[in-house]
């Protein structure tokens, strides 16, 4: 088998274990949607039907591993909006940004709506979320997710994220950018092949622009989360470093108890990044048994 992502060997810990983990499928993970049902009741109901669930994050009863459920979309609970299939690391994004009830939130690249709806859940359907999605073809999926999950505090806009209007400022901004998606790859069949995203080299410029605009529409004292599902430092630390060079942005530490987080890296292929990038978080499949992920929690000073 051709080794994968060899070029990341210098910073991925326990690289052989990392490569081994790519042979396993990403386990089914569910978020229980408390906008529509109590977490305990949904868990009990699924367990009574013989479906095994395991907590994936000790502090949060809404996040469960469901290895017995290969197709959660076929459950009645899915139709009812009680559950949403969402990767564990993807769920962490809203938890880390942690928008408060009654706040004003922007999700810059919202479709298909998993993180948007999670934020709505954390906000108790209060305040207002602006879910921005450029492509109208993705509005159907976004709207469907939001309505299925009972999200009532959301409006949908259709701006180019990097040109989102500056006339309004938000308490929280989620910048979950289009990326090369390396973290989503699994070699689950003998025929599975990793195909590098053809746009990969072009992505960092777009991501820098989107992050810059996201910071510009953030209120002073507000919080922003930059996230991707790739291992590529050029789409991760380099993009955040670019923001730090041109603004007063601060990177805050990310505290997720009991979760194996690796720090952001400080150099890659001859480029050195701001030392604050160590506060960013990298999530690897052999550590968290989920999609590979990157996030940086950013604050705009008062």
């Amino acid at each position, binding site marked *: 088998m051709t080794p994968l992502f060899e070029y990341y060997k210098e910073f991925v810990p326990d690289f052989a274990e990392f490569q081994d983990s790519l042979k396993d499928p990403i386990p089914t993970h569910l978020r229980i949607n408390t906008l529509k049902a109590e977490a305990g009741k949904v868990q009990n109901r699924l367990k*009574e*039907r013989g479906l095994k669930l395991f907590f994936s994050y000790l502090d949060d009863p809404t996040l469960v591993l469901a290895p017995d459920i290969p197709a959660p979309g076929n459950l009645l609970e899915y139709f009812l909006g009680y559950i949403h299939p969402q990767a564990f690391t993807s769920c962490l994004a809203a938890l880390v940004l942690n928008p408060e009830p009654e706040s004003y939130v922007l999700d810059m690249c919202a479709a298909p709506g998993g993180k948007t709806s999670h934020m709505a859940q954390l906000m108790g359907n209060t305040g207002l979320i602006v879910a921005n999605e450029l492509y109208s073809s993705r*509005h159907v999926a976004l*709207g469907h997710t939001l309505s299925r999950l009972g999200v*009532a505090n959301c409006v*949908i*806009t259709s701006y180019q994220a990097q040109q989102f*209007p500056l006339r*309004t400022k938000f308490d929280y901004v989620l910048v979950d950018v289009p990326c090369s998606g390396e973290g989503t790859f699994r070699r689950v069949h003998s025929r599975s092949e990793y195909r590098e995203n053809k746009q990969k080299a072009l992505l960092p410029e777009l991501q820098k622009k989107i992050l810059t605009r996201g910071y510009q529409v953030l209120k002073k004292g507000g919080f922003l989360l930059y996230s991707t599902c790739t291992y590529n430092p050029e789409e991760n630390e380099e993009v955040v470093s670019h923001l730090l060079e041109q603004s007063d942005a601060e990177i805050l530490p990310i505290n997720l108890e009991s979760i194996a987080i690796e720090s952001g890296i400080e150099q890659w292929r001859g480029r050195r990044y701001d030392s604050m990038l160590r506060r960013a978080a990298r999530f690897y499949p052999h550590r968290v048994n989920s999609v590979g992920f990157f996030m940086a929690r950013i604050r705009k000073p008062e």
Partner: protein
Amino acid sequence: MRKSPHLLEAGRLKIEYAGIKAFHKVGKYLKPTARLIQCFGNQATKAIVELRAEELASLVSGHGLEMDLALEDGYVIIRLGRDVVLGVGLWNKGRLISQIPRRELRAAMLDTLFIGQEDTKF
């Protein structure tokens, strides 16, 4: 959302969609959407049809249900057991027809319900 102070701010943006769609216009009638009913149907006090799992399975398969219920003709709320609000049905002269989109509520979704079917409470 109506009560949110941020609505004025968001009004300065070009909004494509807002909130949850509440009603469709069907001829001269307003039909509530399944999603609206799922959010607020548990507060309803009338026009409710409560089904057992096997009755729901029959309904979802496309069969109407003949039932002896004292209901006015029109849209009704379909509930599974006492607590699970599913969506909208049409009650006409003693017969119930599902108005829930069949591509969304599929018969296969009900298969696991028959394990422990005596308890359909959520």
